């Protein structure tokens, strides 16, 4: 594939987004099916009629170690969360891939623009949550 052809840039970015979405959807389906079996029946109507009082939100551990433990032990909630993480990672990967695609086109201006966007994105995702006063 000739990466200098602008059309192939669309193809690659389109694929990154499509595979990210498909992977995320599959993992969430897996978690949802697991949830139905964990409840002792294949009745998934509980998912359609959400009852806010029935869910022990505090029991969901979203810390990296808790999530990892849940994934290894096939906890359905953790798998759904994993699917959500894959979904969140999809646009981020798209930006990462764009930096390389513009680089292969030797488009320095857009390498710079995309790299700055990536830096802003990572700063906002990883740094700002730990700054007091942000997102309150």
């Amino acid at each position: 594939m000739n990466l200098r052809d602008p059309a192939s840039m669309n193809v690659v970015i389109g694929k990154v987004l499509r595979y990210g979405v498909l992977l995320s959807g599959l993992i969430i389906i897996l978690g949802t099916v697991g949830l139905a079996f964990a409840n002792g029946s294949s009745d998934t109507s509980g998912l359609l009629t959400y009852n806010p009082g029935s869910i022990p939100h505090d029991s969901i551990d979203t810390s990296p170690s808790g999530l990892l433990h849940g994934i290894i032990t096939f906890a359905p909630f953790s798998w759904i969360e994993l699917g959500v993480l894959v979904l969140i990672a999809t646009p981020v990967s798209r930006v990462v891939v764009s930096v390389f695609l513009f680089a292969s086109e030797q488009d320095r201006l857009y390498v710079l623009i995309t790299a700055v966007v990536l830096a802003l994105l990572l700063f906002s995702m990883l740094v700002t949550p730990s700054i007091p006063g942000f997102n309150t």
Partner: protein
Amino acid sequence: MFFFSIFAGIFGSIVGLGGGIVVIPVLTILFGVDIHFAIGASIVAIIGTSSGAASTYVRDKITNLRVGMFLELASASGAIVGAGIAAYTNSAALELVFGGILLISLVPMVMKIGEDVPKSPELKGLSKRLGLKGSYTETNGSQIDYNATRPVEGLAGTAVAGVLSGLLGIGGGAFKVLSMDIAMKLPLKVSTTTSNFMIGVTAAASAGIYFTRGDVDPLIVAPVALGILIGAAIGARVLLRSRNVTVRKVFTGVLAVAAVEMILRALGVPL
């Protein structure tokens, strides 16, 4: 929840907004979900609408990647500023102001209601240096070539969109579409699909905080995410076949709803 989310995905992917405008009120009012979990779910919904539909739009070259990347500079910095000043601002007053701006922006939108493809301006200055032009093919085979104009104004409008989404978690998409449509004079389908492309990045930027805070409830997010992804796939196919005139009518209607929703929220209605 699943079926409403399909609906939200279809609409969101056509008009370039996140679908949060449908998801949040449906979850809070119809399902009695706490507003925090509703916002957490809507962030996931926005990313799903964006990535799900953008994969089709990008492949079919209707999204303008350069315009998107360039404007993301403004939306991403704006979102950080918005998140940083959120603690020091009165969100109700802000919602009232921005709801008002959206209402006012209905005027130029209604005046342009019959417009199909705008007369393309000459490519010059900064737009030329940035290569902010493009071309796409309608399903009937006609090729639409276009140039962008007033990139600085577009950047400013998108920065407002970014601040807004950082501050309030919503409303970014509407201002992005308006910036590209009114300031940069892009064809509306290019504006909505490029906005759709961008909102995923803006939402991902703030997703980390909602996730670690535990606002992303698996029981709510599973049906919402799956519904949104299916809806976005349907919506993307609908948009490709739609005329700019039709998209403009739908967008103007959704804009009116978004404006009213934001003003109601400012007045204390839990939407």
